[in-house]
């Protein structure tokens, strides 16, 4: 009896193991790639992206007007194949790629571009893309005065010249403008009859019947995966990999095991630094890294009445931070130390701001000079980010050496955001995403909506205003370097590091070239080695 049971059991196991095995890269002749994601997307509508999963999937499904160069971040042609700037530096004439088609076969036209920009400028639009478009002549007026529920009518500064050409006129020179034209278009023939307030919840955002990117939506299974298929009519040529499965695996450990077991091909961007050496030991896996346009910093609340309003106290804190130690020991080298508000990738980055010296004696002197022997400050940071937790502990330890007692308060994400927005903190560890263009206006101009720290320096304001009107890159670089020096000298924040993206990729994937803002930047050029062997 027992033997029969055993035999039956082993048969079942054999059967089950037979059903399974390592994932084949090719089903028949069709290649497939399995990508891990922490969460599924929320929307596929490219104008309403608010989370990274939606943004990643959107970059597979939609082509943007322009792209930025992965190394220099300079604007490059994409759906817009060429452009011209008129003498006045206000009018840009754009020509769309002649082979650019929607997936339903209709050409992508200048009217699509004009329609998309009208949606963005419509009073009922709730995404963030209006920020750069507010510089377009007539955009503000459209936003304030447009009565219809639809994105119809005209914006004075946007003109459709012919099927493939359109022009945009700005109300004043705005040097970073081109670097913001990196949004995709909506198909006007499908969506112009939809009220703008209903666009976000419209079927289009989930079923995506028509798109323009390297891949088209095949299936989106709730909480399981998004399956995309190569778009045969993609204007840069049909992608080499036939199918991509973007699979939601909400657990990092499971992701790594599945990658090692050969059931996933790519863990993009957020591989944990501790896992890198284990993954590197496997010849089937390659690790790629690239800089990203995000950084972490310690925000200093100077709006609240506290000793931090004294610059000497802020400087004492800044002198304590050992960025090298954080980068080498906490981030195991997968980050660049940061000393100012721009990243090494930016053309206006200033190397002269580097300061390595951690000087406890000087920090103590500054504190005493400011009239404090001992000081208590609270530091707010969010739960679930191990790196920030370690940084907080390191800072607490260092500060204790000069008589500053740092009280740590670890908050759940939403509570953390609420504390930051209500200014209920003295010090906070925050992250920030920056743009491809080095323009510092959004975060550091005293009148900008994005100036969350309430930083105010009139000289900086003037420099930034000059810089967005300047015409040459050298001129802008000089102005931004001057502005950076002033901002850093005022110590409104302590910049810490900019983490690198770490991707773990199956060795079979070739031509993998991630962009600081998008892992799928050149996805249409990726190939799988197995594919060639099969042929």
């Amino acid at each position, binding site marked *: 009896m027992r033997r029969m049971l055993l035999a039956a059991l082993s048969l079942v196991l054999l059967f089950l193991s037979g059903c399974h095995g390592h994932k084949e890269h090719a089903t028949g002749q069709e290649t497939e790639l399995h990508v891990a994601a922490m969460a599924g997307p929320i929307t596929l509508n490219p104008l309403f992206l608010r989370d990274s999963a939606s943004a990643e999937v959107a970059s597979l499904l939609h082509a943007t007007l322009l792209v930025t160069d992965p190394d220099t971040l300079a604007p490059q042609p994409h759906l817009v194949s060429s452009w011209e700037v008129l003498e006045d530096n206000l009018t840009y004439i754009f020509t769309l790629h002649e082979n650019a088609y929607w997936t339903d076969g209709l050409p992508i036209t200048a009217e699509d571009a004009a329609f998309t920009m009208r949606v963005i400028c419509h009073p009922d639009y709730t995404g963030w893309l209006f920020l750069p478009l507010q510089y377009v002549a007539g955009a503000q007026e459209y936003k304030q005065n447009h009565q219809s529920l639809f994105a119809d009518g005209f914006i004075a500064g946007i003109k459709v010249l012919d099927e493939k050409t359109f022009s945009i006129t700005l109300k004043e020179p705005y040097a970073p403008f081109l670097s913001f034209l990196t949004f995709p278009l909506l198909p006007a023939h499908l969506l112009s009859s939809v009220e703008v307030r209903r666009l976000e919840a419209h079927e289009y955002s989930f079923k995506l019947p028509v798109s323009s990117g390297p891949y088209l939506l095949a299936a989106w299974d709730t909480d399981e995966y998004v399956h995309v298929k190569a778009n045969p009519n993609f204007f840069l040529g049909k992608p080499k990999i036939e199918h991509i499965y973007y699979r939601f695996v909400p657990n990092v*450990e499971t992701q790594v095991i599945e990658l090692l077991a050969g059931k996933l091909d790519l863990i993009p961007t957020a591989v944990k630094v501790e896992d890198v050496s284990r993954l590197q030991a496997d010849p089937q896996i390659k690790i790629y890294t690239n800089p990203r346009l995000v950084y972490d910093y310690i925000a200093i609340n100077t709006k609240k009445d506290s000793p931090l309003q004294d610059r000497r106290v802020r400087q004492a804190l800044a002198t304590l931070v050992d960025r090298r130690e954080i980068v080498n020991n906490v981030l195991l080298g997968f980050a660049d130390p940061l000393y100012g508000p721009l990243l090494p990738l930016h053309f206006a980055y200033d190397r002269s701001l580097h300061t390595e010296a951690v000087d406890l004696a000087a920090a103590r002197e500054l504190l005493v000079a400011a009239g404090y022997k001992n000081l208590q400050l609270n530091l707010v940071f969010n739960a679930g980010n191990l790196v920030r937790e370690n940084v907080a502990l390191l800072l607490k330890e260092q500060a204790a050496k000069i008589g500053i007692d740092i009280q740590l308060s670890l908050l759940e994400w939403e509570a953390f955001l609420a504390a930051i927005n209500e200014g209920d903190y003295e010090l906070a560890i925050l992250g920030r995403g920056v743009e491809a263009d080095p323009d510092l206006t959004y975060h550091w101009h005293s009148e900008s909506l994005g100036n969350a720290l309430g930083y105010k320096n009139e000289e900086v304001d003037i420099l930034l205003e000059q810089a967005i009107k300047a015409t040459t890159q050298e001129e802008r670089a000089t102005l931004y370097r001057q502005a950076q020096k002033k901002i850093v000298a005022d110590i409104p924040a302590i910049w810490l590091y900019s983490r690198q993206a770490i991707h773990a990729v199956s060795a079979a994937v070739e031509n993998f070239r991630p962009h600081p803002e998008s892992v799928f930047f050149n996805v249409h050029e990726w190939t799988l080695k197995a594919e060639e062997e099969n042929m």
Partner: protein
Amino acid sequence: MIFQLVRRFTQTLLVLFGVSIATFLTMHLAPGHPLQANPELRLDPTAVERWLQLRNLDQPLPAQYISWLSRMLRGDFGQSLLYNRPVTELILERLPSTLLLTVPAFVLGLLLAIIVGIYVARKQNSWAERLVQIFSLAGISVPSYWFGIVLIILFTYRFPLFSAVGMRTPGDGSFWDIIQHMVLPLTVMIFHNFAYYVRHVRSAVLNVLNLDFVRAAKARGLTDRQVMILHVLPNSAIPIITIATLSLPMLFTGAMMAEQVFAWPGVGRFIVTSTMARDYPVIMTVNLYTASLVAIANFFADVLYLLVDPRLRVKA
């Protein structure tokens, strides 16, 4: 009898009303709102304001509650703020995959616990009893999360027999494929359920076994089997029914840990993400839904008591 049922029903309605107000208030007292300015992203404050307006989130709280209540009474549970789709649709599309996991885990776990529990109750101080006690202690104290990861390492990496991610292989989804994906999460859940139920079954049966009427039955010359079936089991059923029916609501809210570790596309994961994201309409609906399930389960337990225990029927 009917009067009692009606009274129970009105009580339940009042409780649900209380739950909805409590949920609504705590939810809005918790800091943050679904689209609050995230300093790590670029957000246009005027757009955020418009977003709140279009969803009536700028209204005073009592007005928001009343409009929610009136819509709910008409069967409209609103739209998810995060997903922009009807809440009921979002829950219903996740329910089948949750039930696929929770129902077998419940049935098998309970069945196994009843069989083993009765067996060890009869064999006190045996090695089998000690083994089961260790096993059930382990099942309760070992976190499902850790156990899940161990299983994944063992059976998808070292001995690749099963799949650990999701409910099916993308592009497959055949019967065997789904069974294959179910094995590991189901093992974790059955282990946990079994460990929980088996102690209750054992102690319920033991309690009855030590009573005088059992000894009397034996003295009358009934066989062990007859004593068990005719006297012990019916009398130890009540606590087991209580435990089992109280876990019924869990069938519908999913196994959050197992769903998280094995990337199972169920209701549990959805509830967690929605709560984290302050998705008010979803939180309201889920709470009401869970509270109703608990109420229904209690009601169901009462009915079952009446069925198994004739004495209660007389009192009623």
